[in-house]
């Protein structure tokens, strides 16, 4: 399983009604709200064993799956 597949699976656990793979402005367009974000952070914590700090909860890090994956890789030191 690639990291992207792992990420999409984790996101689907939080919201199965959002097309994460194809959306580019998840936060800015209001497709996910602050509560979804907190769930996503918990899901990423579990899937990738990383702890995202509050300062990184910014729309630009969660607007699309590419940005989220970059954030995950930054925490993993990749």
């Amino acid at each position, binding site marked *: 399983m690639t990291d992207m597949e792992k990420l999409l699976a984790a996101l689907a*656990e*939080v919201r199965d009604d959002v097309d994460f793979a194809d959306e580019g402005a998840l936060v800015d367009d*209001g497709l996910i*709200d*602050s*509560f979804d*974000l*907190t*769930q996503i*952070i*918990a*899901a990423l*914590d*579990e899937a990738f064993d990383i*702890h*995202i*700090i*509050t*300062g990184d*909860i910014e729309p630009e890090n969660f607007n699309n799956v590419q940005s989220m994956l970059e954030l995950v890789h930054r925490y993993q030191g990749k």
Partner: protein
Amino acid sequence: MSILTVEFLAFAACTLLLYYLMPLKVRWLVLVCASAVFVCLSGWYSAAHLTAVALVMWGGGLLLQKKKSRLLLAFLLVLDLGAMVFLKYYPAFSGADLILPLRLSYFTFQSAGYLIDVYRGKAEARKNPLEAWLFIGYFPQLAQGPISTWKELGPQLRTGHRLDPDSFVSGFQQLLWGYFKKLVIADRLASVTTALLKGGDLPGWFVLGGVILYAIRLYLDFSGGMDVVRGFSRMAGIELPENFRRPFFSQSVAEYWRRWHITLGAWFRSYLLYPLTTSKAGIGLGKAASKAFGKKTGRMVPSALATMLVFLLIGIWHTANWNAVVFGTYFGIVMAASMLLDPVWKSMRNTLNLPKDGWMKPFRLVRTWILTLIAQYFAFTAGPGQGLSLMAQTVQPWSFAGFAEQMTGVMELTEWIIAAAGCVIVLVVDILCEKKIDVCGGLAKTHFWIRWPVLLALILVIVVFGVYGSGYDGAAFLYTQF
């Protein structure tokens, strides 16, 4: 100095004139001087407290930038927020009579946000104390809000802006629109709230109508004031963050709170909700709850608990009384319940094969109205007892006998007609904005001979139909005391 007074308008006009007469480099100092005069006119106590908070913020910011210490941040926040908590809540317990600095809760939150942002590396600490002072003392913001972050406001204040005719006219339009909402409609509706608070044997329809009108008045009052200060700021080239985005069109209570007092919600989200829910303890709690309730619901538990705390604090932030506790707890429970029960709603929707849009949209709109109106019973009454008693009156069998007398007992028919016409105008503009038709932007771009007659007519309406009396500066803005 209230923004409703002629003195404020003259003061704002002089500030703008001086601002644009000065060289670009020193224009921000005009704002510093104007804000210093404004805050001093609000009382020496306000000026002293604001300056003390600015100094803590300035020095603390520099120290935090030098050494990222969590202990130091905690100390600074206790100092900053502690002073506010003491001044705001000590009198409620002790009965002492303390003078509250103007907009204490606003500038305290803004300075606390700055310190946290510097700690998080989101803002660069300012070396010049005047820049830090202006960030929390900028006078239009001190008059009405919102709560800005450094990133949103700080750099804009420090930059000298050139006169841009489009922004200037657009700002002027917004300023007039704000005065229209406040003086022509909101202040007129104040007599409805007075009639409700008088009590007595009021019919159910009157109480419900009165509470609905209170909600509308609160929106027009607060968002009108915001329009005035955002409009003035835009005339000076400064864009203050949006604080209201037509909340009454919300499809859920969560959406309502994303559109109502947006900057307060953003502050609590960024500086309390996220740190609580995404801390190691928050994530750990979610994992433990997942074992008991399943992954989906379990992960929501920390968010639900943090939301309840946030709304309780939002309630108490408004004022220190039991009504605020009821208001905050109620919204916290509604939000947490809607979050935790979301899977249940979803399966119910699927089972009943309910559409996502169609008639469900007005249904959700009405549901949101009902849920938010329940809270309004505790927003303007003297205590939870009076709120509950008005609720009981609402659900009693309705009798429309004496309808006309009841209505004209509040205000004359012409006053009702003016208020209703004003509400219709705001509703039409809001509906157009909801449909992404930019009425204000459109007007600003129209031909001179269309734009200015419309604006002059608006000025005339404000002057003629605004609620004034001898020596009267309008009902004080409902939010000024916070």
